């Protein structure tokens, strides 16, 4: 079997055996987005205006929540060492782990977003753009986040440090992702936003596994 | 030279707070930072000197 797919299968299987870890991030996403209307007030015009930003920031934080565990368990029980010494290229295994992280953490957010968008009075076409933007953006969040997770592996205060390292790098994804939905609501063309998100995704898909691999080798030394 | 008096200079045409607030902050931080760097250097040197002194004392009393 292809080592990349084998890694994905392994991580998904592990997550299914321990469902709570996956569900935590999803619940977090649902609760945080639902808190905003309670804090701001139920006025539909205002909610509609801030919806893209809120859903995106919540997706960003929910992704961040799962990141410290991306490599930690494999690091603790020695599986990461075995991966580094495997005849398969470590970059491929790392790419598999990132893909699994997206399937378990990013994809549920993408699927839930249209439902949560209803709370903010978004119409069907805006919900469609939101889902599409998240579909392009959440893999980007997983890819960039993996670099941070690898850099902070086994480091004091890793979780907070991870947020400090990763959040500034998430800003372009946030701007174009939320911007696409805002532009659509304002009646503007969203092609530019989405193609820039796609371009960043391609760039990150090339570089992030490589940088993550380098960081993991440093962490294992 | 377009300042008529010292007071005129410090008033900065009504922008005193902003101009001196900016230049002052730069001055303060750019004095403090080198002092901190300097302090770090002298502290390492002091520690190393004390360590060496302790080694020498050990040597003299023959406990090393």
């Amino acid at each position, binding site marked *: 079997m292809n*080592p990349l797919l084998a890694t994905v299968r392994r991580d998904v299987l592990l997550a299914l055996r321990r469902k709570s870890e996956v569900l935590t991030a999803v619940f977090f996403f649902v609760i945080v987005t639902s808190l905003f209307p309670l804090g701001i007030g139920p006025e539909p015009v205002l909610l509609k205006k801030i919806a893209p930003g809120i859903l995106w920031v919540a997706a960003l934080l929910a992704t961040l929540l799962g990141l410290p565990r991306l490599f930690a368990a494999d690091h603790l029980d020695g599986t990461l060492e075995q*991966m580094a010494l495997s005849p398969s290229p470590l970059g491929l295994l790392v790419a598999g782990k990132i893909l699994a992280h997206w399937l378990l953490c990013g994809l549920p957010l993408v699927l839930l977003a249209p439902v949560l968008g209803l709370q903010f009075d978004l119409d069907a076409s805006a919900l469609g753009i939101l889902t599409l933007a998240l579909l392009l953006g959440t893999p980007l969040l997983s890819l960039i986040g993996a670099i941070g997770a690898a850099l902070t592996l086994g480091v004091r205060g890793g979780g907070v440090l991870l947020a400090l390292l990763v959040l500034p790098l998430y800003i372009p994804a946030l701007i174009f992702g939320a911007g696409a939905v805002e532009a659509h609501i304002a009646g503007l063309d969203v092609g530019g936003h989405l193609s820039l998100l796609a371009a960043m995704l391609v760039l990150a898909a090339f570089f992030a596994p490589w940088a993550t691999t380098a960081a993991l080798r440093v962490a294992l*030394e | 030279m377009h300042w008529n008096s010292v007071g005129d200079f410090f008033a900065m045409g009504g922008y005193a707070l902003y101009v001196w607030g900016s230049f002052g902050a730069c001055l303060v931080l750019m004095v403090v930072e080198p002092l901190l760097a300097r302090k770090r250097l002298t502290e390492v040197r002091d520690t190393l000197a004390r360590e060496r002194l302790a080694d020498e004392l050990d040597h003299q009393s023959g406990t090393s």
Partner: protein
Amino acid sequence: MLKVSGLACSRGERRLFSDVDFSLGTGEWLHVQGANGAGKTSLMRLLVGLSPADAGEIRWRGETAPSTEFRRDLIYLGHHAAVKEDLTPLENLRLATALDGVTLNERSALAALMRLGLRGRENLPVRVLSAGQKRRVLLARLLTRPAVLWVLDEAFNALDVGAVKLLGELIAEHLGNGGMAVLTSHQPLPVPGGKALVL
């Protein structure tokens, strides 16, 4: 085939060892000895390429290690269990080999687990196994892939008497088939012959 020359390693400011030289040919094994903290584990990690050496060179089949070929020929088992508690021994074994790019059919996996005395426990979650049994799940990996060089760090620890004897037999068999092994241990090992390296 394995040639190590002038290897040196320091941890922080402390020099652990320097000028370590040895070579291994087919059917030979090396016993790395030394007190706690002498750098046995560091040497093993250096040897397999997990951490960089301060100086020295490791050559495998004449080429500088670590290379992909070296990794294909290598199995390294360290202190860690490297076993997932939520999976069964069978799943653990098959997924671990799949990561190495090797497909292990169920029958060979079951055979390997049986050889290590885990018969009947193949489909229990590893969580409910004893420490010794977990260790056996890890050791089953030795039988899943035709690797020439086994690097085993403290592999005989946490094993009961039966397992120690079994591992000794496995290593002897491996050497008999032209394999090589590098082992660390405090205790005398139940494997005949072997070179010794004292750190």
